[in-house]
């Protein structure tokens, strides 16, 4: 198996705090890798390092054979690495369609405007936004904004998708729908790296799981292996009972 | 050598006042994410406040200092409710334009009142002579007052309930609101304080140098340079940044014509920003 993404011994400090310490992980072609850990474990920082919001202090990040360590976000996006944010960032004044068109235009395939618009229309329908295509993104509901975040990332036709808590804030019915959408994405061969607090969801979605604690790797393996790991139970599952599910990283 | 030392020392004195002005700018920025482009115009109104009180009414010059603070505060709170409250939380573009619009109005009114010709308020205060160099009394007095006012601000922000509430609002407005702090009032208060600082630093500058209604632009640029040097949203850093800028000016004026100072400062400003683009702009909340 070949890796889509290789993170090799990456570290990042903010001031005196080590947010990520000597972390290595691989995402294989076509797999869903879950990234979990208690609040403040550095999960979102890992995403920020991968998609170029921050440059790592040490270590190397390789995406499909290209070294992307320290490259700016827009260059990484063009290589086919898309991201849906935990805190949704819609381009509020633009319509749903235009939001997705931006993703398609400037994504991996670098489509011309008209083709991008057609592709965006398709993706929007796929995630269930077909009816709201001309609505300004700012007027969508929370669930709608989450879908838009996903649709926009998908419009880029990425090789790898980073999903940061796309289930947070959704009701159970919406969670089910979203899980189906994510499964559908994987079927098309897109690899997914997902951060999620809804345990049941991530356990059922992921092929493998990586557990992060205090910025370093605590454990990795199949969902059942990880769930049985005593270290994980003390550091994470045991430390805070189901209440954890509702919380978010700052 | 002594000549250079003397200008370095004088630079530090003047720099303390720059620091005070920049504290006003940085306080407003830090608390409500508004970059106040009316800062320069307010500074100039502080200068004309001294002119009005000392020259026209004949009051003692330093009585203008508390009056400036008070007047600036009242004006600042009013300005907040008129021009700033509605744009809190809207795109930065809007706050820039709104405060700039206030700047235009103030400069326009000032020009109608005082034309654009230079004014000078003579303040007599004995200086200190040492090795043939005189350190001007007004400069020393201004520096001392600036440091005292900055100290009072620090005590207010860190050791009073209201001050702590302001800092809480700056840190996380939503959380502050939830814990029962009247955030809008705190923002108005902080804006008032920021404007008061700008006004009083104008008054102090006017005790040292001549000025016109258009001087604001130059001092606003200085405040921005200082803010960038000292770290945005950091009042203590502003004072240090101010002194650093005063130093640079004190030394630079010995080697080049005064008209080049704004260009040097502008260059310094851009260089600083380019050197630490992340450190300075990236919101710490990222």
């Amino acid at each position: 198996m070949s890796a889509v993404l290789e993170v090799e011994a990456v570290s990042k400090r903010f001031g005196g705090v080590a947010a990520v310490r000597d972390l290595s992980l691989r995402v294989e072609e076509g797999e869903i890798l879950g990234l979990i850990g208690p609040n403040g474990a550095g999960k979102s920082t890992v995403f920020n390092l991968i998609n170029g919001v921050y440059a790592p202090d040490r270590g190397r990040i390789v995406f499909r054979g290209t070294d992307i360590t320290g490259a700016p976000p827009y260059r990484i996006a063009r290589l086919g690495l898309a991201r849906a944010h935990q805190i949704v960032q819609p381009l509020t004044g633009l319509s749903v369609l235009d939001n997705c068109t931006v993703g398609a235009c400037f994504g991996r395939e670098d489509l011309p405007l008209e083709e991008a618009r057609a592709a965006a229309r398709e993706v929007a329908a796929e995630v269930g936004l077909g009816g709201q295509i001309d609505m300004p993104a700012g007027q969508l509901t929370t669930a709608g904004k989450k879908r838009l975040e996903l649709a926009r990332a998908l419009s880029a036709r990425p090789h790898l998708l980073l999903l940061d808590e796309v289930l947070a804030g959704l009701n159970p019915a919406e969670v089910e729908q979203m899980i189906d959408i994510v499964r559908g994405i994987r079927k098309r061969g897109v690899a997914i790296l997902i951060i999620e607090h809804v345990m049941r969801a991530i356990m059922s979605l992921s092929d493998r799981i990586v557990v992060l604690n205090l910025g370093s790797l605590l454990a990795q393996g199949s969902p059942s292996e990880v769930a049985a790991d005593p270290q994980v139970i003390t550091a994470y599952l045991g430390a805070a009972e189901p209440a954890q599910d509702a919380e978010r990283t700052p | 050598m002594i000549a250079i030392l003397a200008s370095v020392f004088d630079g530090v004195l003047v720099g303390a006042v720059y620091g005070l002005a920049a504290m006003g700018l940085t306080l407003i920025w830090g608390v409500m994410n508004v970059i106040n482009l009316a800062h320069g115009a307010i500074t100039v109104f502080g200068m004309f406040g001294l002119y009005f009180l000392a020259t026209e009414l004949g009051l003692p010059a330093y009585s203008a200092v508390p009056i400036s603070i008070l007047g600036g505060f009242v004006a600042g709170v009013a300005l907040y409710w008129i021009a700033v409250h509605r744009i809190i939380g809207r795109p930065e573009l809007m706050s820039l334009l709104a405060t700039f619009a206030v700047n235009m109005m103030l400069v326009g009114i000032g020009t109608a009142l005082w034309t654009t010709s230079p004014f000078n308020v003579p303040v007599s205060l004995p200086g200190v002579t040492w090795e043939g160099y005189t350190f001007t009394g007004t400069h020393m007095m201004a520096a001392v007052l600036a440091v005292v006012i900055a100290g009072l601000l620090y005590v207010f922000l860190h050791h009073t309930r209201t001050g702590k509430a302001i800092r809480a609002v700056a840190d996380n407005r939503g959380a502050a609101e939830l814990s029962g702090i009247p955030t809008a009032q705190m923002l108005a208060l902080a804006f008032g304080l920021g404007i008061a600082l700008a006004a009083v630093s104008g008054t102090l500058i006017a005790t040292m140098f001549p000025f016109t209604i258009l001087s604001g632009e130059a001092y606003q640029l200085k405040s921005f340079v200082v803010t960038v040097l000292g770290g945005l949203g950091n009042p203590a850093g502003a004072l240090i940044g101010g002194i650093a800028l005063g130093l640079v000016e004190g030394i630079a004026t010995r080697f080049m014509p005064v008209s080049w100072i704004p260009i040097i400062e502008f260059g310094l400003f851009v260089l600083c920003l380019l050197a630490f683009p992340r450190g300075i702009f990236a919101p710490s909340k990222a």
Partner: protein
Amino acid sequence: MPWLILLAALGCALIPYWTDDVQLREGLLLAAVYVILASNLNLMIGYAGYINFGNIVFFGLGGYISVYLVSEWHWPLPAAAVLAGVAVSAVALLFGLGILRLRGAFFALATIGINEAVRQLVTNFEPWGGASGIYLAFDAYEPLGGPMQALWIVYFLVIAVTALSLLLSFAIKNSKFGLGLIAIGQNENAAATLGVPTPLYKALVYSASAVLPAIGGGLYFFKSGIIEPGGAFNLGTSIEAIVMVMLGGPGTVIGPALGAALYEELRGALLTSDIFSHLQLVIAGALLLVIVLFIPGGLMGFIHRRLAWTRRWLE
């Protein structure tokens, strides 16, 4: 839409010519210059969401280069103006790649600094006449058939540049480049995550917004016959251009033009009144504040909200 623009331009060009109304021509010329400034500034403010307080520097520099070429090297006016446009936009591109790393107020402030720095430099630049500037000799107008005819030719050229400004706004708005810019204006970090090459696009739009004002400056100062630093790099005009953009509707194609025409009318009315002529700045400021606080979409935003069908064909 492009046909509408061309038709309007043709009308503006021909009506004063047929009626031989010189006063109307002068009024329209001034309005057209403002439309050029506002429309190109809108590429920055309305599309990319960056305020360029020093936008007048393009106009002034274009004027200087053009007037210098005509006066000292006896270049024909159109060639001089076009070269000025190209040169100024090239300089803007270089500058843009540097200062557009700044965001928000820092960028805004830097643009003021650039305007002031250029003015200082030009004031001390002897080949361009230093503080007193360059006067065009009478015979500079000879190649265009004497002053009377030259004024008409310059007027037609200014109208052409105005039409080009609007067409440029339209073309950019309906392109991939424009979509990327608007994404930057909405949320720069999100745009970068989506793959918009933000530094390049910002520098390109800064440079694109310089070309036509520089050419316009060349034409305008040729017509005036004199260019000096105070008039060429007047920060006040720069700021009036911002008021026009905000008044008409940032981010729309015809909004800024509408705003420019409206502001020009308003200013004309105020200037003739004794009380208001001193308070021009105050009134412009108050106007800007009211727009920002209450109608941030400007006139076009207001129309679009009231009459949704206009969105389709009035951009």
